[in-house]
Structure formats: structure tokens, C-alpha cells
């Protein structure tokens, strides 16, 4: 787990899978249909992306994601076109988690299967050794992309903590 990219680099192409939010999902009787999203869609855009090792895991959705949701307006005011969370969970799990967190259409919840794109950036972590059924995951990080170039990269030295990958650190960098 060591980043292989720096501020100023262009990110490699990646394809995520996600379930687009629709109001019908809120009553929990529909599950949604996974669709692909390529990083190509972010050409010319300012994107704030934060990654978690897993949905529902500690440091807990209480610490990392909710502040992002609360400060989406501030992120948008600073020019962010897209705010998204990424993990290696499948898109159905991410859709369920984002509904529990109340993301609505404000924050995309993107699946990076097998942490493939994140590992291309050196941002994956192997949690199999913990013996609790977690495998290859994304580590905890935040990245700001501007026209697919990295403007900010904050990788938590301790993935159970939220410091440089938190929304306040990102806002300060925008």
C-alpha cells in the first residue's frame, strides 16, 4: 500500500459499477440495476473522490462519509462537479449503504471491483490477514481530480482514522 501516483499525474482509466439513485430506491422494495461509469466521463470536470475499505466498517460510517454529505454544498461552491465515495464492495451493497447514509443523488457510491483501479494508483490494501472475511480492499484515501489530473491526494497512514482523507482536508485543498 504505497501510492504510485503524485499530484500532477493523470489518473489511469478506470471503470466503476454503481446503482444510480432514483427515488424508487428509497422505499427499499427495488434494488436498482448496476451500470458502468468510466473515469472518461470526468474529463474536464472537478471530482472529489473518497475511498473507504468497506461499507459499514469502522472507523465507522459515522466518521468519514457523513461529514462529506453535510458539506456537499461547500464542495460544490468550491467548484466540485462530482462527489463520490469508492469501495471494493459490490454495487448493490454500496447502493444499500448510501441509502442508509442518506446520500440521495448528492454523492455517488461507486464500486471499484477487487479494488482494481485503486491498486493501479497503489491505493489498495490486503485485509485478508485480519481473519474477518475482508480481502483486497481500497485503503482510506481522498483524491481531487481536475480534468483527470490529480490536484490533491490524501492517504490515511492509519486506515482506521480520518485525517487527510476527510472533507475538511479536501476543502482546504480546493
Amino acid at each position, binding site marked *: 500500500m504505497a501510492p504510485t501516483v503524485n499530484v500532477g499525474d493523470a489518473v489511469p482509466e478506470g471503470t466503476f459499477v454503481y446503482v444510480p439513485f432514483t427515488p424508487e430506491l428509497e422505499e427499499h422494495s427495488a434494488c436498482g440495476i448496476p451500470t458502468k461509469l468510466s473515469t472518461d466521463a470526468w474529463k474536464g470536470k472537478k471530482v472529489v473522490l473518497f475511498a473507504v475499505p468497506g*461499507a459499514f466498517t469502522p472507523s465507522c460510517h*459515522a466518521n468519514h462519509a457523513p461529514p462529506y454529505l453535510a458539506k456537499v454544498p461547500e464542495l460544490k461552491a468550491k467548484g466540485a462537479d462530482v462527489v463520490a465515495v469508492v469501495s471494493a464492495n459490490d454495487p*448493490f451493497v454500496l447502493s444499500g449503504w448510501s441509502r442508509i447514509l442518506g446520500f440521495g443523488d448528492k454523492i455517488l457510491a461507486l464500486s471499484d471491483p*477487487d479494488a482494481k483501479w485503486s491498486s493501479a494508483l497503489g491505493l489498495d490494501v490486503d485485509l485478508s490477514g485480519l481473519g*474477518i*472475511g475482508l480481502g483486497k480492499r481500497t485503503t482510506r484515501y481522498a483524491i481531487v481530480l481536475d480534468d483527470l489530473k490529480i490536484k490533491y491526494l490524501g492517504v490515511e497512514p492509519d486506515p482506521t482514522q480520518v485525517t487527510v482523507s476527510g472533507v475538511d482536508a479536501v476543502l482546504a485543498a480546493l
Partner: protein
Amino acid sequence: MSDIKIKVGDTIPQGTFTYIPWTPELEDHSACGIPVKLSTDEWKGKKVVLVSVPGAFTPTCHANHLPPFLKKYDEFKAKGVDVIAVLAANDAFVLSGWARFLGLQDKILALSDPNAKWSAQLGLSQDLSAVDFGTRTKRYALVIDDLKVTYVGVETERVVSVSGADAVLAAL
């Protein structure tokens, strides 16, 4: 799709799942819980209903498979069931979150079978890597009495029939 290897009368192989025991503190979603292990050895002498789904939050949808088991909890208990559990290859944190979402509380355990390892021994796993889902459990239901299988219901299509609450109740 592996062939089913388990049948009525067989003793289940030993398996170890992980799960997060439900506590009221989990309900406000600020705590995540700590995964612990559960061995099938603990089911010796007990009557267990095990329901397996390919994944938390996936179609046919939590609306069709799990809720009837929760709704008919008292009927299962009246028929002598000691433990009702849902099983999936998702990790224990995801299962705990999904269980809270479904309101399972302490009525239905949500167990993680990582990589569908235990289910594979029964021939009840499926390879969904083609859609980036990895190895998952099939959709099935088992009734296990003192570690012996007394009912096996494995879905072959994307419906809930032989693995559903009514089918299991009829078999008890």
C-alpha cells in the same frame, strides 16, 4: 455452478462463520460492532433454519426472501426451531448493516460465509466473477437438526420458492 453435494440425512461439514452479534447500540448506526466467529459445532443438539442469499441488498430483493422469515418468526419457534440465520458471502460488517436495515435484530442471525467456503463444500456456491461478484452462495434453505440435514431447498431460477419461509415451514 457446482453440483449440489448435500442431501437429507447427511451430517453437515464443520464450518466457521463470522458475524456481528446484534446489540441495541448498533441501531443508531454510529457503532459498527466487532465481528466474532461462530462454529457450526454450536448447533449440536439444536434445530437450525439456514437461509442463504447470493448477496445482501441484491435482487430478487430483500423484499421477497428475508422479510417473510422475520414475519413468521413465531411460527418457526412454535415448530421447535432454535436458530434462524441468513447466510451470504458478504463480509460481517455488510451483513450487520443489511440486517439492521431489514430489522432482523436478535431474531435472525446474519452470518458471513467468506468466499462461500462452507457453502462450496455442500456444492452450494456459485461463481459470479463474470459480473465481478466473485464466489457467492446460491439461494437456498437448509433445516439442520443436531447437525443433520432434514431439508434442502435450492433455487434454480431467480425466484423464491423452495428456499422461502413457507416451503421451510411446511417441511418442519
